[in-house]
C-alpha cells in the first residue's frame, strides 16, 4: 500500500494510476457479481427439492445486517475525511468502527448461514442452496478482505506509519469498501426483499 512506482511521474490525465486502476477494477468486479446474481435469479424457483428461500429468509434480521453495512460506509467516509484533515485520532476511531461494523456484518452472515444449514439449506442440497451460498459467500469474502485491509491501515496508523500525504491509500480502501456495500444493496433487494411477498402474505 505504499506503491511509489508512479510517484513523481506526471501522468497523462493527471490522475493517479492507482485510482484509475481501482475504478477499472470496480467496473470489472461488477461483472463478477452480475454473473453470480444472474445464476441466482435464473435458478430462482428451479430447485426440485426444498427448502425454498421463502421458507428460511428472515427479512427483519437481514435488514439489520444491511443497515450495519450501510452505516460502515458512513464511518468509512468519515475516516477518509479525518486523514485528509490530518486528524489521526479520528482516523483511527473511524477505521476501527468500520472494521467492527464489517465484522458484525460477517458475524451476522455466519449466524444466518448456520441457521439456514439447520433448516436444511446446504451448498449441496439444491439449486437455491448452491447459488445462494456461492453468491453471498463471494460477497462475504470481499467484506473479509476489506476488513483485513482496514485493520492493516488501523495498525499502520497506530504505529505512525500512515501520514496525511498517504490519504490516497484510505481513499482507495474506501472506494473498495463502498463498492462492497452497494453490492449488498443489490443483493439485499434482488435476493431477499424480492422473496418477501411469499413470506409475508
Amino acid at each position, binding site marked *: 500500500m505504499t506503491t511509489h512506482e508512479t510517484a513523481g511521474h506526471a501522468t497523462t490525465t493527471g490522475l493517479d494510476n492507482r485510482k484509475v486502476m481501482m475504478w477499472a477494477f470496480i467496473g470489472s468486479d461488477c461483472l463478477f457479481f452480475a454473473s453470480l446474481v444472474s445464476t441466482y435469479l435464473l435458478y430462482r424457483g428451479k430447485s426440485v427439492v426444498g427448502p425454498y428461500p421463502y421458507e428460511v429468509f428472515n427479512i427483519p434480521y437481514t435488514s439489520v445486517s444491511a443497515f450495519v453495512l450501510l452505516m460502515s460506509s458512513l464511518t468509512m467516509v468519515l475516516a477518509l475525511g479525518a486523514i485528509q484533515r490530518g486528524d489521526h485520532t479520528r482516523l483511527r476511531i473511524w477505521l476501527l468502527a468500520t472494521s467492527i461494523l464489517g465484522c458484525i456484518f460477517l458475524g451476522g452472515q455466519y449466524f444466518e448461514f448456520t441457521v439456514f444449514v439447520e433448516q436444511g439449506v446446504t*451448498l449441496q442440497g439444491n439449486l437455491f442452496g448452491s447459488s445462494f451460498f456461492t453468491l453471498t459467500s463471494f460477497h462475504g469474502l470481499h467484506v473479509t478482505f476489506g476488513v483485513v485491509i482496514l485493520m492493516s491501515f488501523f495498525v499502520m496508523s497506530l504505529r505512525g506509519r500512515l501520514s496525511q500525504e498517504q490519504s490516497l491509500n484510505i481513499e482507495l480502501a474506501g472506494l473498495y469498501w463502498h463498492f462492497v456495500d452497494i453490492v449488498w444493496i443489490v443483493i439485499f433487494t434482488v435476493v431477499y426483499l424480492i422473496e418477501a411477498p411469499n413470506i409475508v402474505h
Partner: protein
Amino acid sequence: MAANSGSLPRFLERPTSYTTGVWGWITTVDHKKIGIMYGFTAIFFFLLGGLEAVVIRSQLAFAGNEIVSPDIYNQLFTMHALTMIFLAIMPLAVTFFNLIVPLQIGARDVAFPRLNALSYWIYLSGGLLLNAGWILGGAADSGWFAYAPLTLDQYGSGGRGMDFYSLGLLVLGVSSVAGGLNFLVTIINMRAPGMTLMRMPVFTWMAFITSILLVTAMPVITIALIELALDRILGTQFFAPGAGGDPLLWQHLFWVFGHPEVYILILPAMGIVSEVLPTFSKKPLFGYPFIIFSGIFIGFMGWAVWSHHMFTVGMGPVANATFAITTMLIAVPTGVKIFNWIGTMWGGSIDFKTPMLFSIGFVFLFIIGGLSGVSHAAPPSDYQQQDTYYIVAHLHYVLFGGAIFGIFSGIYYWWPKFSGKLLNENLGVIHFALLFIGMNMSFGPMHWLGMDGMPRRIYTYGAEYGWEFWNTVSTIGSYIIALGTIVFIVNVFYTMRQERRTDLADPWDGRTLEWSIPSPVPEYNFKEIPIVNGLDSFWDTKYSTDEQGYMTPIPQGASDDNQEDEEVDIHMPGLSYFPFITGIGLSVSGFGFAIYSQFNVVGLTVAIVGILATFFGAYGWCFEPADPEDHH
C-alpha cells in the same frame, strides 16, 4: 518512506544485485524482460499445442486409425485448444503488449511493473497447472468449452482432468485480468506528452480495446469456472441435471466470455498488421480513424453476438434471428479494416520482407475466415455446419491464418528491436511459404469435409463415408506446418548465434516511437521522454511532406543513437521477489484444490500452503519500499 525503512524486516528489502542470471529474471519488473519471458514461454506452449495437433491429425489421417486411444484423443483436442488459446495466442499478444506498448506511447515502463511481473508468473505456473493432468491421471477431456454436464465425473471419462481445467483456467484468469487492468491504466495514463488518443499507434489502440475486453469478459468465465469447480469439488448442484441445473447456463456464461475472447485473440494481430503494412508500403495507414472505430465497434459487438455459438440449443426463432443479425453486422467493421489495409498498400512501395509476407498472408487468410463465418451466422445454414469440420476450418482460418500469422509478422518485425539482430530473411521466407501452403492444405479441405457431414471431435471414422482422402491431405498439410515451425525455430537459434549489430535502431524505416531509440532498447527506454506532435511523429522527423503528399527525406545529422557509453542516470523501479512468490503461491493453491477430491489431506495442505504463500507475497509486496536505495 525512507525514514521508516530502517525498521523493516530483512525480507522486505528490495534486491539490488541481480541484474543478470536466473535471479535477475525472477526478480525483474522491467516490461521488456517480462515481455521476453512471456514470448519464450508462449512459444514453448505453442510448440506443445502444435505437437498435440500433429498427433490429432495423424490419428485422423486414415479411416479407422488407432494411433491413440479415444480417451487420449479427447484429451488431445481439448488440451490443443486450451493450450493454443490460453497459453499461446493470448500470451503472445500480451508479449507484444509488454514489449511494444510502453515504447509506442513513450513510457519508461507500464503503470504497475510489479503487477506485470505477477501476471507473468501466474501465467507460467497456471499453464503448468493446466497441463499437470497429463502426468496426474489424465488431462482435461470435455472439449475446450466444456459443456455441462459432461464435465461432471459421472458422465465424463472418470479422469481428473477437469479439475485441472477449472482451477488452471481460474488461475490464468487472474493473470489476464491483472494484465488487462495494467495495460488499461498504462495506455490511459502513461502516454508521452502530446500523444492524444487519436495520435496513438494502431497497435496500442488494439491493445487498449483488448485490455478492456479482458477486464470485462474474464469475470464472467471466472464465475462459471468457480461454479464448475464447486460442483466438482464440493458437490454443489449448479450443472447437475437431476437437481434441475440447466446446462445452458454454462453455455451462456461461457460464450458471454467466449465471444469477446475471440476478439481478444484477433484484435492484437489486427494491430500488428496495421503497423507492418504501412511500414513496408512506405505509406501511412489508410483511414486511421476508421480502423480505430471499427476496432472499437468490433470489441463492442463482441458482447452482442455470443449466442451464435448456440444456434442449435433451441433458443427459439426470435433469439436465433436476433443473434444472426447482430453477428452479420460484425462483417461491416471487419470489412472496413480489410479495405483500409488494401488501401494502405495501394499506391505504396511494397517491400516483401518476411513481416510483410505474414501480414499480407494474414489479410488473405482472414478474408477467407471472415467470409466462411457468414455462412454460419445464418442459423438454418448453421444447423448443417454446427459442430462439423466446417467450423474447425473457419476457426483455424481466423485463429491460425489470422492471429498466428499476425503474431509471426510481429515477431519478425520487432525481433531486432529487442535483440539487436535480424531474423534471417531466407529462412523467414521459407517459414512463411511452408506455413501458408501447409495452412491452406490442412484447413482448406476441412470446409469440404464439414459440408460432407464429418462431425468435429470424433476420434475415428469409417472408410465408407468418403472422408479419407481429404483427411489425408489435411494431415500432410499439418506436417508441412510443423516443418515450417521447425524452420522458424532453426531461424531463432541461428539468429541468436549472430553478432549483435549496432545499426538496427530503425531497420525497416519505421513510423512509430519504438524505432526512435537504440536496439536493443536500453533499460530506461527513452533517455528523454519524447514529445508527440501528431500521428507518426517519428516519421515526420525523417521525412517532410509537401501539400500534394509527396515526401522528401530530411537529411539526418550524425546518428545520436549510440548512447551506450554515455552515463545516463534514470531512476527505474527496483527489483522484487514478491510477484514471483505471490504468483507461484496462487498456482500452488490452485493445484491443491485441483487434487483435493483425489487426495483430500494432501490437497488441502498444499492449498493452504499456497494461500499462505500468496498472502505472504501480497503482504510483503504492499510493505516493500519503493526503492532499494532507501536502505542505504
